[in-house]
């Protein structure tokens, strides 16, 4: 079940109208940009969680 976490990046990045906006800004970046950049570490983290749980299941 925990493998379903791997679907979150797809959902988060395919809902384009949700993030195709300017506000709120962060460090001068419009939302469109920092939201997508934020998915980079988030995806790594989710993958790590799945990786850990799979190893424990072994």
């Amino acid at each position: 079940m925990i493998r379903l976490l791997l679907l979150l990046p797809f959902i988060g990045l395919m809902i384009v109208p949700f993030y195709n906006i300017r506000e709120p800004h962060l460090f001068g970046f419009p939302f469109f940009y920092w939201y997508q950049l934020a998915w980079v570490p988030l995806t790594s983290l989710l993958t790590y969680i799945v990786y850990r749980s799979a190893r424990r299941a072994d």
Partner: protein
Amino acid sequence: MLTNVDSAAFAVFLALFILVTGMGFVASRWRKPETLAHLDEWGLGGRKFGTWITWFLVGGDFYTAYTVIAVPALVYAVGAYGFFALPYTIIVYPFVFAVMPVLWKVAKERGYVTAGDVVRGAYGSRGLELAVAATGVLATMPYIALQLIGMEVAIKALGLHGEVPLVLAFLVLALYTYSSGLRAPALIAFVKDIMIYIVVIAAIAIVPSRLGGYGAIFTAADAAFAAKGSGGILLSPAQIVPYASLALGSALAAFMYPHTLTGIFASSGGNTIRKNAMLLPAYTLLLGLLALLGYMGHAAGLKLASNNDVVPELFKMLFPSWFAGFAFAAIAIGALVPAAVMSIGAANLFTRNFWKVWVDPKVTPAGEAKVAKITSMLVKVGALLAILLMPTQFALDLQLLGGLWILQTLPALVFGLYLNWFSSKALLAGWAVGLAGGSWLAWSDGLKPLHSVDFGMGKVAIYTGLLALALNIVVAVAVNLVLKRVPQERLSREAAE
């Protein structure tokens, strides 16, 4: 040939290029195998690359030199739409994490070197094997040509004109790939990736402070698009579906290419691949920030002859000349790694799935390595001639079609890892219809990657490759259902008689 060459920049460039060339030849002795005369060694580096080597190799091979030039160029030209490379290179990794360790395991256990080998093993079909292999080679050729374009831009930015420098650089590349195989790009990738990281980190740290900060950069880009009357720092409503579908389709296609698969097969195990799926996104962060150089071009008020010049011109304007030379060397060397791996991947396919099957079934492992070495050389010369003799647009159009084509091998390559339902005939039919139908759609749309579809709610433009994949799967399922029914009907008829 030499006009306006800055001597400091040129010296740095030349020194780095010579260093890398030396490494390319020394690589044949790196992690020395008993013999290089075996495709597992020449073409896959012995399947022993651990987490870090794989990280540098796949990173250096997937985020190509052309990317460094073309993504900021697209963002400079059209704005937010050019950022589809960012979601694309994020969602690709959960896919890699879930699928590629399974593929690696099959390949390792049965000694497979290519996607064609995997398909033959799963379905026992020479036809499907040839289809997958031919698609791989065809899709890779224009991709190599694209690396040459990236290299050309970097060499031109140094002030070197004419075709001699490009031909020389490529000949050197062809020679050390011939002698060292996959070990050469794997070793060079260390230098290349560290250089690219230095360049991009310097650019995103220094350039914004020269241009008044990120807020000012976005404002300047916004104003430039408004003045131009097209593009923008947000997507227009008509760009939303194209943006998402290009990201998804590209992500599914990315690891079907021979060069990325070669990186996967060459790794030392499933966990190496899983760890890389967590670590490779570091390159995506870099790519996202690099893309912003397109906006920095607007903030710096560059006047460009070609969009592809945005990165070189920005570096020349804002960096001291020796560092600009370093940056151009990073881009040119950056082209060598993917070009080498691509030619190796294509050569492996040709050797294993064409030469060995149709020409010389009794070929020895040493013979295989020899055929692959010569093929890798021919593939590179072909790409070089294509760039020298044909218009650049031709390579770009073919590269676009190549993405669509390679995506059509996904059902044959991936479905068999999980399902034992499809027959090779059904997959071959799906592949053929997807390939032909997709190419025809792209052709009729004037070689644009998007096709308008009316789902009853008005027209929506979708990435053509994804449409072709849907068609491919529908045909495969339909043909398979028909094929499965035929013998059953015959059985029941016989029973009734």
